């Protein structure tokens, strides 16, 4: 008698359990909740033009947060996101202003960002240093290097190719920049990588239990390296998007990108201890931050109070998410 094998014990999960079990549903509900509240306080909030603006404002942090998600999923943390992205804008801008071909310039800049990711990944995987320290060190090095390259000042970048990602197109009532489309494309592509390929499986496994991953024969170090390299590449693309949004290369830009991108990841439900979470949550997390900032302004909240309200709402957002999870 072997009635008790896999097959017959496998009760299909109820639809409700399935929906509530999907990790990004909590953040999504929170996002929608905030939207409803803001729409009630100010009907302009829902104007397609305003929603388009929010999307455009989310692009840079949204894309940086993709790389940050990858790194955090491996139980790391990346404090150099902003610096690497600025590296891309400055190098591309500088080269174009020196008369080089814009496509090559941008390509080279993205390559450099990828190389910065390679350096971080090399130190983390090769010397097994804590990612916090490695990326903090790289942040310091790049901060200095960028100021030296740009001689301390920001400079405008007027090349149409570099600014191309800022061009807009209409879609229904929405005004979308190409940058917004690229952001969504990147999310889709990296989501696919994370959820439909071996590479993604290994990323989760390493973050969840690095020793087990090593023992089953996953090349942990090489994989970690690839994660940081891909993150660097993504930061490079974010640099292009940043130039589209602000055609100005400024060594001092993106000071708050670290905190903002980590915040998006964590609000999106990904664990800072690695191995748990996902990319859709991050996108929603980034949107929550954007919606809060925009919605509070539209609600006429004094900027002095905005930090306060944002602080409270972020805590509430995550608390609601936790609760919905515990229920399921």
């Amino acid at each position, binding site marked *: 008698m072997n009635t008790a094998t896999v097959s017959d014990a496998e009760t299909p999960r109820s639809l409700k359990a399935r929906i509530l079990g999907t990790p990004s549903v909590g953040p999504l509900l929170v996002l929608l909740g905030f939207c409803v509240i803001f729409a009630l306080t100010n009907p302009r909030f829902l104007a397609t033009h305003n929603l388009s603006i929010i999307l455009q404002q989310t692009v840079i942090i949204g894309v940086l947060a993709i790389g940050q998600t990858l790194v955090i999923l491996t139980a790391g943390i990346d404090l150099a996101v902003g610096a690497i992205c600025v590296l891309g804008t400055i190098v591309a801008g500088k080269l174009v202003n020196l008369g080089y071909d814009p496509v090559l310039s941008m390509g080279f800049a993205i390559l450099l960002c990828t190389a910065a990711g390679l350096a971080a990944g090399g130190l983390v995987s090769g010397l097994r240093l804590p990612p916090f320290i490695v990326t903090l060190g790289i942040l310091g090095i790049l901060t200095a290097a960028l100021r030296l390259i740009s001689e*301390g000042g920001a400079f405008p970048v007027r090349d149409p190719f570099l600014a191309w990602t800022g061009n807009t197109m209409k879609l229904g009532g929405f005004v979308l920049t190409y940058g917004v489309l690229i952001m969504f494309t990147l999310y889709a592509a990296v989501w696919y990588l994370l959820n439909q390929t071996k590479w993604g499986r290994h990323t989760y496994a390493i973050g969840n239990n690095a020793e087990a991953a090593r023992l089953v024969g996953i090349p942990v170090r090489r994989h970690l390296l690839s994660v940081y390299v891909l993150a660097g590449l993504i930061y490079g693309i974010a640099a292009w998007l940043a130039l589209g949004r*602000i055609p100005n290369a400024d060594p001092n830009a993106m000071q708050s990108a670290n905190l903002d991108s980590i915040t998006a990841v964590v609000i999106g439900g990904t664990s800072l201890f690695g191995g748990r979470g996902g990319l859709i949550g991050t996108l929603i997390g980034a949107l929550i931050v954007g919606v809060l900032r*925009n919605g509070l302004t539209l609600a006429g909240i004094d900027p002095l109070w905005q930090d306060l309200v944002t602080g409270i709402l972020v805590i509430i957002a995550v608390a609601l998410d936790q609760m919905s999870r515990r229920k399921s």
Partner: protein
Amino acid sequence: EEVIIGLVTKTEVNPFFVKMRQAAEARAAEKGVKLIARAGKFDGDNEGQVAAIEDLISAGAKGILVTPNNSSGMLDVIKKAREAGVLVIALDTATDPADAVDATFATDNFEAGVQQGAYARKAMGDKQAVVAMLDGTPGGTVDTFRHDGYLKGFGIAEGDPSIAGAAITNGAQDKGQVGMENLLSKNGDINAVYTINEPAAAGAYAALKSFGKEADVMLTSIDGGCAGVRDVKDGKIAATVMQFPYKMASMGVDAVVEYAASGKKPSGFVNTGSFLITDKPVEGLESKDTAWGLENCWGD
């Protein structure tokens, strides 16, 4: 022994102070003295600036040029420096009390704000104003002076109903753009914009343009960086108020060199001046055009 001059700026984040440092370095090289520069990490980094001055005393600096993050934040350490025989000169921002330092070479930021506000008001004629305030870092001395000055020049008080809203930009272009976008979404009638500095103004301009409003809004600023002056020339910014970090820095270096040589100390407040730069002058307000501005601007 080599003369060492210390320079402690607010941050390396703000191009104004970067240019000030570069000017000081150039001048020091000219005079054959050694300049050691330090900066705070962020607007409000009193601890970083105090530590910098302490380190410079340790390093044996003859004189220290400092742009205090806030006017009362470092009185003790300045006293310590002066007691150690170090000449201390405040650049750009005065201390409170002003005689805590040997001398102050600075612009009156409140006055600069007044110039910005007054220009905006006059240039708009009788138009009913709807104002947006793009502030820097609330609580900073300069931020407060410029903000309050603008309101005074514009002839309104804090809380006036014509103020449609405010945003915190930290003087950065990206935050200026986001703040302006959100304020425009909130109130499409905005027709006058105060900005804490020219990067914030550049961000505001981008937002105005994406809303198709760049022509109808009185966008003004303060700084006098060359990029800003060019924006005035291109009509992106209606007017800006120029300050002179080069002048402050080189005067400061000169003073320390003089002190090292002769022991003579400068004293008092030296206003390095501020000029309204615009190609559309209004009556009753003295201003210079952008051609003059481009000759005298800082940065590149």
